[in-house]
């Protein structure tokens, strides 16, 4: 092979992939176009406004710096690419008391407010793209349970919140006997140690940001049908 053929071949082979698989798609997808609800198909009309609240940018930083992406993913793949849809609470809920089947796969707007989508490396822990909704649901269920258990002794100050549950998890994922198997690392260095025995450790700003970020990951809003490739819903049972 001569140098000319070699050089030309190198530039052509690498350059074309570089251009068409990396650079062009990167710039083409830079501005996300708004998506509209379609008349007649969707219940709503107009443009779809994704809503994501909380300390997304700060929390994403804490998430990145502590390597949570090594074991956690943040993507719900459509059914052609995996079974994420069928794990309850990952894609939404199969039977939400108010809205029925809310499941959907990830869309571009889910990563709003982040510089880098933490798709994740491995899935040792569960997918986190709907972890906010899951914790809200758990907190609600826990409150209901305690209310019925305690009866008159219950008062509203005993209510737990999704934040409190997440702080508990982050401080030590293995507190509950049923979770002894958890391999999620503790990030208790993001907390100030409790002043006295029996008090809960108080979260540092980083822990608060992280929890805000985790709670912002929800798949609980209605998206236009054009963005939802969910399998056709079974007829009402």
């Amino acid at each position, binding site marked *: 092979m001569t140098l000319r053929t*070699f050089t030309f071949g190198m530039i052509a*082979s690498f350059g074309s992939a570089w251009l068409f698989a990396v650079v062009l798609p*990167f710039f083409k997808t830079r501005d996300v176009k708004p998506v509209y609800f379609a008349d007649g198909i969707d219940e709503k009309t107009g443009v779809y406004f994704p809503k994501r609240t909380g300390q997304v940018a700060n929390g994403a930083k804490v998430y990145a710096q502590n390597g949570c992406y090594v074991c956690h993913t943040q993507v719900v793949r459509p059914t052609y690419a995996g079974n994420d849809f069928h794990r309850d609470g990952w894609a939404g809920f199969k039977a939400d008391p108010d809205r029925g089947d809310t499941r959907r796969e*990830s869309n*571009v707007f889910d990563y709003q407010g982040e*510089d880098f989508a933490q798709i994740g490396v491995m899935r040792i822990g569960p997918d986190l793209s709907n972890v906010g909704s899951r914790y809200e649901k758990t907190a609600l269920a826990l409150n209901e349970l305690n209310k019925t258990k305690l009866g008159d002794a219950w008062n509203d100050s005993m209510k737990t919140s999704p934040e409190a549950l997440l702080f508990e998890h982050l401080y030590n994922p293995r507190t509950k006997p049923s979770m002894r198997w958890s391999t999620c690392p503790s990030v208790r260095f993001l907390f100030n140690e409790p002043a006295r025995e029996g008090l809960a450790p108080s979260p540092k700003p980083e822990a608060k940001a992280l929890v805000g970020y985790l709670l912002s990951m929800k798949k609980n809003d209605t998206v236009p049908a054009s963005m939802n490739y969910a399998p056709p819903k079974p007829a009402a049972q």
Partner: protein
Amino acid sequence: MSQETKQSAEQDAILRTAIDRSLRHPVMFFFTSGAAWLAVSLLLGIIATAKMVSPEFLDGCPLMTQGRVFAAHISTLVYGWGCQAAFGVLIWLIARLTRQENRASGIILAAGHAWNFLIAVGTFSILAGYGTGVPWMEFPTMIWPALLAAYALIAIWTMIQFRVRTPGEVFVSQWFAVGALVWFPWIVATAFLLVFCVGGNPLMSAGVAAWFRSGITYLFFLPTAAAAAYYLAPKISGRPVHSYSLSLIGFWVLAVVGPWAGMQKLTGAPIPFFLPYMGAAAAVLIGIPTIAIAVSTLRTMASEPGKFATSPSLRFTAAGVVCMLVLGISSTLTNLPNSTLPLTQFSITHYGMDILAIYGCFSFVMFGAIYFIVPRITRREWLSKRFIKMHFLFSMYGVIAVAVLSVLGGVLHGQGQEDFKFTWDSAVARAYPYQMATLIAWCFVLFSNVFFFAHLLLMWMRLGRRSSHPTLLGHAHLDSPHGPEGDIDNAGPGSVIAH
């Protein structure tokens, strides 16, 4: 031998010695500091895997958080060991193949120090919690342009040498070496600019990062290993490269297919639909070049089967090439969309493939090259064949365990992830035995590399044997294991004439 050929052989030997001497310090520096980083990386890998198995181990210590340790482990493996070993081998190879002394060894040595300093700062930053959170690019943002600048200083002279060499054919080994030298900065600069400088869609940034990981693996580590194997196989066996056309296929299929791979890791994520599919197709096709390269280098080595028993370089290189074959075939088998890809996309196969590529395929060939190069540049022979044997055996057991168990175990782990009828803890439990095996295997590998590092350090201190009989693994052998180039002329240039 006629008078004339004898003279030119003598001149040849003098030239080789001059080239080797010109590169002694930078190349030894890259190898020794690379080996030190390898030991650091293995230690971090042991901690990270131990924490996967038993999360209470060093729990709650910020520096030792699972995610940070894992990131530091991979970063030191890739940039501390992998890149430095590759630089050392590539600059030596090109100098030898273009038959020119390297006149920039001072600059290269200085840039090598800068490189090490940057890796150290980057690794501490990751552990201290300043990582970027981009897989394989966790070093803080400012580190990257500095690393690229250091790379430019390391590689520029080698590129000039290639450019001004005596015109003629470009040899097989050179294609791969120059390919690696050109692709590396192109990939790093692209990923750095797109991910950290130009704000883009967060998903495409993740896509570019996935492409980067695959690019470094298949377009830097793999061709570097191929370049060394294509150099060592004919050198040691004394036979020409087995099949030129097969090598040609190997190179060009790699060049055409390699750059498309990577984004299959984002299958199902909301990015343009064709990207993950192109990535998966390319990852499947990676099998072809690895088979072509492996067949032609192994056939070359096998033409002198007796050398396997004696030459440490050949043994390591052959083992690395076999790993390359396994890597390529695994890439084909684990990236089939709609069948195995959903199982391996997020399972521990991911880690297994990385280790198979970096420690299995790449590092083994680099060890082979190092066992070949170091006696030539230090003009001393390796001290102990027992050290070399220990290094080989424990590394081999270790890498077979890590790679094979993680790649295959990862498929079972993936099945657990996909089987939604069972709760998540059953998927976690499925990964457990393989993580346990990985932990034990890493301990083996670390143990083996203690020997390697100690040996290399002694050689760098020029405490090697002053002998013109190379260190062989078998019993005394009259043939030279180094092929026609002959024994190393430790008594001075030209004292032993090539036979």
